[in-house]
């Protein structure tokens, strides 16, 4: 099917969709990619409250052991495990994934490639509904007998496999069921993203004219689809172990607990790049617009992203160096793990290179994009300590690991999302966000973020191990200054959480009362800025666009304007 024919069919399909619809039909049962994106976005923001509240409760317990945490109560050992488990699973599976992949992918892909909707709109609706169901199952697991699952977000058996070990028989199964449902939802979304980009690009848009963020979401979707199969299979096997008494992971029945770790991390490590790549894409869009520069080496970015994706399938066992796998395997995985530093570092070099010779404007989205690079660098280099097998013996399962992956995941899930929301907000809601409050929120997030996690590097280096609700049983971990570091990190967290109120107020105030936004307030090149703000159902009322050039033609020497929209025919050269 040619692209033009696909467009024609879509026009026909949507011909009858413009009359007034009821609230439910329009906002809850919609097949419009933009509404589905908003559903994902706001569900993700809601789930971030749960992730934020759980970390508040367990960090308070660590700083002030035994206290009654305001708004929660006393955190018991059982509670503590359930809280850390929920925090980890929610932030990765129910915040980073829906916001970065599902919300942004849904919102941006049709707009940025110049078509009117996804190719499978009903599949898209089903994807969100499954995701919503998975969120409800997860939340419900807190209220079942025994409470929520507390075996960590990695859910290693035998602890997760048997109720007599975990004491949360129903909670464990509901957690697994929620995760499996959520993966099914994103599988449907991924199929949709890939098919849409392959088939519905605007006439004239060649593969190398596709904006990097779209490429990144596509590569991420391919990685996700290729890696999630083993984990869904593993989840079903673990569910059988829990509920039907099979023994896939039970050594007494001939199974092997380490098998789960392989299945989990074969998915779990590519998953890091599944969320990293879209965030990298967002940063590429924003730094080019606000430094008025062409992206430095577009194809290099693309190839390094693909290289990272391929390599990410060969590094999973670095999570298992000391897990009881054959120690000789660690040599292989240590090599692949350090090799993956090369394409990722190269992407960062490219972004730094893009700034050279620019005309940099420090707007709120630009601050977030730059902060992503600055903070992610620390997350990247600290990963080397853990990928180097010899050093990992000491650092494995300490707070050093926690600090390391928060320096990667916080920039991805939060700095990346804030960058995206503040940048595309005018398009999404037709209003401008308040810049002053945006900057207050920025500094109020970045400073405490570093104040939380730098102490955790130090605590990890001093031997603090993970998932311990009270260190008072360990004399060596109660030495002078260590509790002070824990208290400091917790206080910084309280500051960070408090500043998120600024964001929420700014977000909702701007949606309803913000200054009206023009179609292209940032003078950007990509196609979404040619549609009205906000785009109506069908996206491009003036007709679907044609594409004449790549997305990053900023400050072209032949042009008076410092931008050159992808849709502008060459004849208009001035």
């Amino acid at each position, binding site marked *: 099917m040619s692209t033009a024919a696909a467009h024609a069919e879509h026009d026909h399909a949507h011909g009858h969709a413009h009359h007034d619809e009821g609230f439910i039909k329009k906002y809850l049962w919609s097949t419009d990619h933009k509404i589905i994106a908003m559903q994902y976005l706001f569900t993700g923001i809601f789930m971030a409250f749960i992730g934020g509240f759980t970390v508040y409760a367990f960090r308070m317990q660590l700083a002030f052991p035994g206290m009654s945490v305001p708004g929660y109560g006393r955190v018991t*050992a*059982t509670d503590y*495990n359930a809280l850390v488990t929920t925090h980890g699973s929610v932030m990765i599976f129910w915040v980073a994934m829906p916001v970065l992949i599902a919300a942004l992918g849904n919102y941006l892909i049709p707009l940025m490639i110049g078509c009117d909707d996804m190719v499978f709109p009903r599949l898209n609706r089903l994807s969100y509904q499954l995701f919503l169901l998975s969120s409800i199952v997860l939340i419900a697991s807190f209220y079942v007998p025994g409470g929520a699952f*507390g075996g*960590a977000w990695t859910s290693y*058996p*035998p602890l997760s496999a048997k109720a007599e*070990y975990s*004491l949360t028989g129903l909670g464990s199964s509901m957690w697994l069921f929620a995760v499996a449902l959520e993966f099914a939802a994103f599988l449907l979304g991924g199929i949709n993203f890939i098919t849409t980009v392959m088939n519905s690009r605007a006439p004239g848009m060649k593969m190398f004219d596709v904006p990097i963020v779209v490429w990144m979401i596509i590569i991420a979707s391919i990685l996700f689809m290729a890696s999630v199969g083993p984990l869904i299979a593993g989840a079903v096997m673990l569910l059988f172990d829990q509920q039907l008494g099979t023994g896939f992971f039970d*050594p007494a029945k001939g199974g092997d*607990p380490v098998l789960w770790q392989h299945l989990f991390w074969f998915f779990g490590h590519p998953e890091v790049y599944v969320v990293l790549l879209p965030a990298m894409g967002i940063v590429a869009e924003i730094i080019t617009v606000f430094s008025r*520069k*062409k992206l*430095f080496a*577009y*194809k*290099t970015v693309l190839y390094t992203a693909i290289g990272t994706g391929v390599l990410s399938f060969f590094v999973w066992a670095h999570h298992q160096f*000391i*897990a*009881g796998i054959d*120690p000789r395997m*660690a040599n292989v995985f*240590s*090599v692949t793990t350090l090799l993956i530093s*090369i394409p990722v*570092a*190269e992407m960062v*070099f490219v972004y*730094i*290179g*893009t*700034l050279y*010779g*620019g005309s940099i404007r*420090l707007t709120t989205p630009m601050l977030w994009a*730059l902060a992503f*690079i600055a903070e992610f*660098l620390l997350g990247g280099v*600290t990963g*080397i*300590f853990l990928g*180097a*097998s*010899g*050093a990992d*013996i*000491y650092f494995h*399962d300490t707070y050093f690991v926690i600090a390391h992956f928060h320096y990667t995941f916080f920039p991805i899930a939060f700095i990346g999302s804030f960058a995206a929301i503040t940048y595309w907000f005018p398009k999404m809601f037709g209003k401008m966000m308040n810049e002053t409050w945006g900057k207050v929120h920025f500094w109020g997030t970045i400073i405490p973020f570093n104040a939380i996690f730098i102490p955790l590097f130090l605590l990890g*280096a001093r*031997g603090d*191990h*993970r998932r*311990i609700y009270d260190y008072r*049983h*360990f*004399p*060596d*971990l109660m*030495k002078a200054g260590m509790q002070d570091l824990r208290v400091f990190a917790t206080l910084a967290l309280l500051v960070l959480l408090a500043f998120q109120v600024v964001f929420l107020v700014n977000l909702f105030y701007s949606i309803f009362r913000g200054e009206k936004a023009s179609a292209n307030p940032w003078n950007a090149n990509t196609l979404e800025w040619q549609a009205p703000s906000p785009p109506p159902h069908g996206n491009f009322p003036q007709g679907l666009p044609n594409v004449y050039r790549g997305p990053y033609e900023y*400050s072209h020497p032949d042009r008076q304007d410092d931008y050159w929209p992808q849709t502008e025919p060459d004849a208009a050269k001035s």
Partner: protein
Amino acid sequence: MIDQYVESASTFSGDIDNVIWVVLLITGFWFILAEVVFFGLIFKFLAKPGVKAKYVSGEKPHEKRWVTLPHYATLAFDVVIIVLAIKVWHDVKINLPEADSTVRIISQQWAWTFVHPGPDNKLDTPDDITTVDELHVETDKTYHFELSSRDVLHSFSVPVFRLKQDMIPGRIIKGWFKPTQTGQYDIQCTEICGIGHALMPARIIIETPAQHRIWNQNNAPKVADVTPTTTPTQLGGMP
């Protein structure tokens, strides 16, 4: 660096600290360099009225080398780190030196059982000394340990030795250490093992050979009757 905060008490703990130190120097150098260049470029190229940005595609060879040169440098430093890390890994995890003595370490929710060989220095003899949450060893003696678990995953971690190894039900996992100084230190379980995960502290007591001999003599007969009902070899699985 690590030994400023956590004492170094095994023959290989210094080697692991050295790897960490080298990685810190290399990554620290690159991290600072990259951040300096990054912030330098931001401040140098802040928007000025009337100044248009440069048009650079980054595809030409003389532009691309700003990415390819750091690329090769990253590769070179990766090789250095890999070689060092793998060497230490071999010494700690793969090439076990001949043992002077062997201890058996059994974990369960939420306690440790340590089986010492006793005065005759042989396991599975009547003078074995079994203790709970307390491991007695002597300095300058190469120990092998045999890890096993009665229920879920646990992990045997001795921070002063820079030693960590998961324990898996159904398997016996071997490793080694050689203490270099006396003292009493934490043993941690570093793999989440249920609600009592934080309540699984144990202590390692490193004694001089003379002290250890006295401990052996004082404890051997008294505690012989608390040998676990199931020995780890009866737990099934791979040897």
